């Protein structure tokens, strides 16, 4: 006897959907005809415009991802407006660009709280809603190639992303038959790299990437769409999107 496929997501929570990759994810979910509830510390004009254009399919609020009570209240409000949630994209994160020996304990705690604890708590909340609501769902973690390869200046950040990949696999096991859980692990985005590296370094990294180009959000979004909407039976996996730079 086999279980039926887990249906495509119809109402997705996206953390950190106000700009960059998060905003692109929100737009693409709407393009697929699904509903989306997204929060960020600051709601950008771009996100406000999306909410205004799709008032029945978008719920937006300014929420700090580390404030568990506020996040739970946000999801309850989103469900009142949009209906039961059955999808989650854990996207919100803060970055790091400091050697471990020069990173304060307080900064390490901040990175762990935002990039690991907050998504674990958010996942718990959404999984509880999925179990008591539609019964099935899909969860995607946005992690990083840093979880698998060493890069200077990213010790705490890498630890959190590796932690999320590990948690994702365990969620896939615990929620078996009910939830598809996967990660997407992008390489460095061209925009991020250009902010901290010079053109010469950027050219070198690009040359060492087999596809000859760094990652852009539009490379990552279709993979997240696939994990949210397609019947692939992919579960408990981390999909690396880096142009082959890490092979």
């Amino acid at each position, binding site marked *: 006897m086999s279980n039926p496929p887990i249906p495509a997501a119809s109402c997705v929570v996206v953390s950190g959907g106000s700009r960059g990759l998060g905003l692109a994810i929100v737009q693409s979910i709407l393009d697929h005809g699904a509903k989306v509830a997204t929060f960020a510390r600051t709601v950008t004009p771009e996100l406000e415009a999306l909410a205004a254009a799709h008032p029945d399919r978008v719920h937006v609020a300014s929420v700090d991802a580390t404030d568990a009570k506020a996040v739970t209240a946000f999801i309850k409000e989103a469900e009142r407006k949009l209906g039961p949630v059955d999808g989650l994209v854990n996207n919100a994160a803060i970055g790091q660009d400091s050697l471990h020996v020069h990173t304060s304990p307080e900064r390490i705690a901040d990175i762990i709280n935002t990039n690991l604890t907050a998504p674990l708590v958010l996942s718990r909340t959404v999984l*509880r809603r999925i*179990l*008591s609501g539609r*019964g099935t769902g899909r969860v995607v973690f946005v992690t990083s190639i840093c979880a698998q390869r060493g890069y200077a200046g990213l010790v705490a950040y890498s630890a959190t992303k590796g932690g999320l990949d590990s948690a994702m696999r365990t969620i896939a096991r*615990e*929620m*078996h*038959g*009910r939830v598809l859980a996967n990660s997407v692990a992008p390489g460095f985005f061209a925009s991020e790299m250009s902010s901290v590296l010079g053109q010469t370094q950027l050219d070198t990294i690009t040359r060492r990437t087999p596809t000859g180009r760094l990652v852009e959000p539009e490379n990552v979004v279709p993979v997240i769409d696939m994990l949210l909407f397609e019947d692939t039976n992919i579960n408990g996996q981390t999909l690396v999107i880096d142009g082959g730079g890490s092979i």
Partner: protein
Amino acid sequence: MAQISRDQVKEMMAEVMRRQNKVLPESEETPLDEIGFRSLDFSELALRVEDELDEELNFDAPGLRSIRTVGDVLDFIDELQKDL
């Protein structure tokens, strides 16, 4: 603290089963593996009880592993409510 009766919990358990096109038998002696009531079904039941109580029922896995029959499920939920 308001509590949910054993009969109410049993009805909720039946509802969890019905969502999967299964039927909850009358006998509380019925083994769970015989009716296909799995650990995630217990989680779904606990969440339904939580919604009624407006309180979280958090518990560790070892307690859950000792549950074998329909009656065990109802007893376990009773115990969790007493701990609130």
